[in-house]
């Protein structure tokens, strides 16, 4: 495989052609925040939190392949400020109240607030009031805690092959749905495999009846699963 | 269809569009005021159109104009050929029209018998 030399944050780094900036950064211990990225499924560049500066252009590191002589900056002032603003927008559009969330302490969004040093949300909160769908016997979805990363949609389609999850509506009313927007309990395509639960970065999709201590998600489950399949 | 056939269609079809091109060499203007029509201008026009069509003339447009104040000479027809003086014919009939097409439009010789005016 072709070897590529590039710079990340000034460090000379060697990578394989075809790798993404995010993969290479991770391998070299350089932390780039992510939310919609999930090992084992296709990257879509939806959350925009992994933006980096490549020769003055902002690109999502999860979808951009490394190139020879690339000069990648992961921590410029605009990059950090924009990431923080994006995170604030996410907090403001949902109802991410950690204090009584079953994922409190095991939530990627909550961790991002620490990582990105989000002191306060500078835009008004919208306090949405969506109905919680608890019609599925084992799982429930609280759409107010959904960040629309689409990890459930991708894992359901690309790993489980069930295609239960999808998107509906658009703009600020966009939401994830099961089958043709029926209650999850009525979604005939759902195999109840639970991969969406493990993949959901927040407390939006969770196991019913799980206590806070029990609801620790295995986000690496999907990655391990697909890796094993490839090796078979 | 081959390219040659396409070009044949174009030859044929572009005649159909000749009116819209505005590049006719010859313009036949028929006086179609009330007195012109009363004197038979409609038949004259029909004859012009028919004869032009039969002879497959593509650079001629036939148009009409209003009253010219020459009631006694109606139907009046002007023939304008690019680069030549305007020739006006009076007291036209369908037969005369056909002669004008053959002699003037095709052969380029004004039919002096019916000419009432040459100008320009």
């Amino acid at each position, binding site marked *: 495989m072709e070897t590529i030399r590039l710079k990340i944050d000034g460090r000379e780094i060697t990578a394989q052609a075809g790798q993404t900036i995010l993969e290479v950064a991770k391998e070299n211990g350089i932390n780039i925040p992510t939310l919609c990225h999930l090992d084992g499924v296709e*990257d*879509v*560049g*939806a*959350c*925009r939190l992994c*933006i980096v500066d490549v020769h003055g252009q*902002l690109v*999502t590191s999860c*979808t951009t392949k490394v190139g020879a002589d690339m000069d990648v900056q992961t921590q410029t002032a605009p990059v950090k*400020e*924009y990431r923080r*603003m*994006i995170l604030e*927008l*996410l907090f*403001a*559009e949902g109802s991410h109240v950690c204090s009584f969330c079953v994922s409190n302490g095991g939530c990627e969004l909550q961790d991002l607030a620490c990582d990105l040093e989000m002191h306060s949300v500078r*835009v*008004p909160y*919208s306090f949405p009031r969506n109905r919680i769908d608890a019609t599925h016997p084992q799982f429930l979805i609280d759409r107010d805690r959904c*960040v*629309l990363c*689409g990890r459930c949609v991708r894992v359901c389609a690309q790993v489980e092959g069930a295609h239960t999850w*999808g*998107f509906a509506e*658009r*703009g*600020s*009313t*966009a939401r994830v749905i099961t089958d043709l927007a029926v209650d999850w309990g009525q979604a005939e395509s759902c195999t109840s495999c639970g991969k969406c639960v493990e993949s959901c970065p927040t407390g939006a999709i969770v196991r019913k009846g799980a206590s806070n201590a029990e609801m620790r998600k295995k986000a690496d489950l999907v990655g391990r699963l697909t890796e094993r399949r490839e090796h078979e | *269809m*081959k*390219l040659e056939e*396409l070009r044949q*269609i*174009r030859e044929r*079809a*572009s005649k*159909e*569009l000749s*009116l*819209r091109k*505005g590049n006719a060499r010859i313009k036949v*203007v*028929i006086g*179609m*005021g*009330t007195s012109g*029509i009363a004197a038979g201008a409609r038949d004259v*026009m*029909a004859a012009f*159109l*028919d004869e032009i*069509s039969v002879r497959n003339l593509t650079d001629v*447009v036939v*148009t*009409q*104009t*209003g009253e010219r104040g020459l009631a006694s000479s109606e139907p009046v027809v002007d023939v304008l050929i690019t680069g030549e003086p305007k020739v006006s014919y009076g007291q036209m009939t369908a037969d005369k029209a056909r002669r004008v097409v053959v002699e003037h439009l095709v052969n380029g010789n004004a039919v002096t018998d019916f000419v009432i005016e040459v100008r320009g």
Partner: protein
Amino acid sequence: MNRRLDVLVCSGAACVSSHSAEVKSALACEIDARGLSDEIRLVETGCMGPCELGPVLLIYPGGTFYVRVSPNDVAEIVEEHFLKGRPVRRLLWETPEARRIAEEKKQVPFFEKQQKIVLANCGEIDPENIEEFIATGGYEALGRALTEKSPEELIETLVASGLRGRGGAGFPTGLKWRFVARESGKTKVVVCNADEGDPGAFMDRSLLEGDPHSVIEGMTIAAYAVGANHGYVYVRAEYPLAIRRLKTAIEQARNAGLLGLNILETGFAFDLEVRIGAGAFVCGEETALIASIEGERGMPRTRPPYPSTSGVFGHPTLINNAETWGNIRHIVLHGAQWFAAIGTPQSPGTKVFALSGKVVNTGLVEVPMGTTLREVIFDIGGGIPNGKAFKAVQTGGPSGGCIPAEYLDTPIDYESLKKLGAIMGSGGIIVMDEDNCMVNIAKYFLDFTCDESCGKCVPCRAGTRQMLDLLEKITDGKGETADIDRLRSLGMMVASTSLCGLGQSAPNPVLSTLKYFGHEYQAHIHEHRCEAKVCPSMIRFEINPAACRACDKCRTVCPVTAITGKPGTPPYQLDAQTCIRCGRCAEVCPFDAIAINSGDLN
């Protein structure tokens, strides 16, 4: 018998809306009744341009151009013009400033300054008759391409012509072709993007309605050049007439051997499918459009990979806008040098614009690139109606920028517009006058893009929403000084970090109005004053006691009884608390005694 008159009835969608079909059937009846059917041919054409004045008729020879024709005018037109040769003067186009009646289409200033290449056939031929297209040289370019030119030569011609994408971004078309041609892989796809979603834009629609074969021919030439055998035209369902005419044209082309397995008996195979979109604005973005063609939800994908590498169903895909396709046959016929000489060196050729808003002549115009905004708005567009003052022009649709009067002499080309914070976009030009509030305008456009955001990426989905909320706060009179900085920083973030062109350009109306009309934002926030007297929260109606004649008209129309008084005993009183600012009183007052004021009282 030979025809002597061709009567062209504009059947573009705008004229259809103003009942051109009734005019046409009235004409048919009257011509038939007078026994003129053999001499006069009625032709339905695509859009002629001045949509404001429809239904319009164009009569050849002579090029007489009638505007605002109603079925009642038909008898007179046939009697006076068709029979007696006297054009009906009252239906001719009178230009207001010169009080001049134009006897012929070519004398009308609206047409005089235009240079029609892409739209040359629109309004001049019957779009449902392939022979009329062929008569204008149609499919000759395809014939020559297939028989005389190699794919490489064609691509070189395109590159040399300098043609740039007419969908908005202005990417060099020839380079796109080259990228796709260089891709290995058996299956390649050619796509026409006719998903025109800008409010007020109808360039693509008019082209498909008026000259669908030119798009088909352009796509077929490209398919040969890049090695594709399959193509899609993506049109929105709101364009039923365009879809119908396009489908008719495809059928005719197939029957004539101009599409299908053995085109012009050269062995080259290419066919087209029409894909009808549901009308989401974002589907005009090429990756979302491709997703939609594949049957997926119309959401954009990150680039790279670009469609030229991996497009429809993962195949290398050449995607161009309808207007771009309309240019191809002319470039192949007349050569790269001919095309490069039109317009400006950086942006050669012409551009079609949909002119709308506060301008006398609204409609479709085609001008060489480099024509100034002033020429388009004042010479072709006839200036601002009702003696009002020009305030701004917005180019590029809802995500374009607003340009103030001081830049009216800017030549229209990709780079010049970008420098001003606007964009070429697909070619919408919206003119605004002194009665337009720029904050309200920014809000209007953002409302559109916010609503049309697909919801995939956070900056566009949530960022435009926050910006819209701020604009609403300001127009509601609740703005704070800090809101201007908030708007600007949110706008820059959304523009810099959004996934696709929709989000990247959505803040343009806000950022450009902040830049050029910042004083209006300031006035809204600090003085609660709306200069244009548009924002209902900051205007008040007041009766001028000196002018009031106590005629009682205002009191009777007020829907909320905010006005009191006794007939004959001036002045009347208007209670500002009760008033809902509907404006009816000011409309009916015969003495102009009711003034609209804005701004804090002090």
